[in-house]
């Protein structure tokens, strides 16, 4: 591929990586569980596109299957499962916060700055040349931090799953950005694990709802010292 086209691909990767970050911020500012799931689907779709662009621009064909799996598993299958879960349980579908939206957004903004400096220190530490897409490492680390933030400050069981998956998306993006993805069999195994984890957690949500008549994790506090 000639250099102008390569530049275009690079630019597109940057744009879609930014779009991924925007979806993470929208999740943080969202009040509805349905939006959480739709935004996660959109985020995974953008992630799949970034993976396709890496295939297109840098000829890493083994990522092709990972890109297809990202869209099939994370943008379609998992959101479908999660939507079914919230349809089937009759609960209040608003997100509960322990930190309000404005403060949350400010904190997440701070996390992006932190992630950017961590990413630079990782890339500076490496003596050899980093892959061309390593710029998006900052975005991937920011995603991990925001995912953790969602898990700790949003109280519905579903929001914990979305937080975990946001983290996983961040880890996948980091793999794409600095190593052009993991070996194929490893990627496939990781997708399988994530899918099974979501199915198991989905079953647990049904049970939590049946037992506690709520899916707020605040009700999970019988086990204490």
């Amino acid at each position: 591929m000639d250099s102008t086209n390569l530049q275009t691909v690079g630019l597109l990767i940057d744009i879609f990586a930014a779009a991924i970050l925007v979806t993470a911020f929208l999740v943080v500012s969202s009040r509805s569980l349905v939006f959480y799931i739709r935004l996660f689907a959109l985020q995974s779709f953008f992630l799949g596109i970034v993976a396709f662009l890496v295939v297109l621009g840098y000829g890493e064909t083994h990522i092709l299957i990972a890109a297809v799996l990202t869209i099939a598993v994370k943008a379609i299958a998992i959101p479908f499962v999660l939507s079914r879960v919230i349809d089937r349980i009759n609960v209040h579908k608003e997100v509960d916060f322990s930190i309000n939206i404005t403060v949350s957004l400010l904190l997440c903004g701070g996390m992006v700055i932190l992630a950017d400096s961590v990413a630079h220190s990782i890339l500076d530490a490496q003596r050899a040349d980093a892959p061309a897409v390593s710029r998006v490492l900052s975005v991937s680390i920011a995603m991990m931090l925001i995912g953790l933030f969602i898990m700790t400050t949003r109280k519905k069981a579903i929001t914990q799953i979305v937080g975990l998956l946001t983290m996983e998306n961040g880890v996948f993006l980091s793999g794409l950005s600095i190593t052009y993805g993991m070996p194929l069999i490893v990627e496939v195994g990781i997708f399988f694990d994530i899918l099974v984890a979501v199915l198991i957690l989905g079953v647990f949500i049904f049970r939590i709802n049946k037992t506690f008549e709520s899916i707020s994790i605040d009700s999970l506090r019988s086990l204490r010292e």
Partner: protein
Amino acid sequence: MSTILFALLLGLPATGTVLCAVFHSRRVLETITVAGAGLTFLSALWLVTTVMQVRALSTPQEWWYADGLSAYVAAVVSGSALVVALYSTGYLRRQVRHRHVDGRQLWLYYLLLNAFLFTMMVVLLSNNLGVLWIGSEATTLATAFLVAFYEREGSIEAAWKYVIICSVGIALALFGIILTYFSALHVVPASGNALNWSSLMLVAKGLDPGVLKLAFIFVLVGFGTKAGLAPMHTWKPDAYGEAPAPISALMAAGLVNVALYSLMRFYILVNKAVGGSFASTLFIIFGLVSMAVAVPFILIQRDFKRLLAYSSVEHVGIIVFALGLATPLAYFGALLHLLNNAIAKTLLFLTASNVRMAYNSKIMRRVTGAIKVIPVSATFLLVGVFAITGSPPFGLFVSEFTIVSAGFAGGNVVPAVLFIGFNAAIFAGFIYYTSRMVFGEPHPPVKRGDADTLSLLLLGVLLAALLMLGVFIPSSLQECIENALTVLKG
């Protein structure tokens, strides 16, 4: 030849899982599980003797790899699995008789027990660090429904926390593995092999030290969560407390060692690549913190299984601490302690299950005068507690003594003194609670009646093993540990 060994070690538990999925009769499920675990254990022993001669084995494309360290841990894990499988037969028959468990649950239990053993073997035998990660996450998934087995409020809560916390931990470990891959990319061309532990060891000196140090921190937090190192241990008392006792036993004796094994692999790699005391200092700190965190929770504990869970946090801390001392003597102590702790934890969790069955409670206040109600189990409980707290003449005394000596010999005086202090406090807590459970009068009066003879016999064997390891170490075990030790030295 090597291919056959890998095929057996992975294939036996995998076949067991598939067969359990097909059959539903109790007898068939029991036979499959016990035979599967037994044959896996024998294969692991075969692997141990094989790697003594050839040092390391791998399959043609190098996806699977085994050396002294993996063989040793595989033998400990599959041995625990065999004991747990045997005990589970009697345990589940009782549960079915008392209608605590129905046919579907019985089937699920055996299916997942086989799957659990399979996933642990995947971790122990994978050469590719990505496959090791997949296996580790799969151990969490295989045990999720086992922790939630009794479908009580508490068990669902425990299982939810367990899956969420361990998945977050392991996601961070995956980032660590990606960073490791990144640190190797300029010395090994990007391919499946660049993630192989054996290839990484060959080029260790060329790995990027800065990136690898950062990678190690993520891996330590990630697999440390799985092993239950403080402060990432919070899922452990809940999960061990709520899971059926034989499953808690296999988590404390098997899963913990599998997670420690993963940590050791990265530890060896980072020590070789970075040198100095970077990784070992982190290990000493995390080890001491885990021991310190366990102390207050052991002193104020009400629930016996949670007490054992905090003891597990402590002993993981002891092993990581010993690894951090980084001398051959300390490594020997760590590896010996890994075996001793596995035997003692299995003994105590299974004894706890006998106590619970007699008193229908695991709250220690409600259990008194056990020596009059279940004399055999009560004796095992008392002696087992002396063993787990490191009193002579049991195996844990020998390994802890070795570790402390290594600490003093290596000039780590302050950590070694702290180690002794934490152990003394934990000893006091354990003896206080257990003596109240064992002695005195049972009130309200409890019907006499212990577990079945096979179960008690099994516990007797475990106790005899602990006693033997306290008196002398057989030369074959000595050789086996020394063979694992050469791997740890890098």
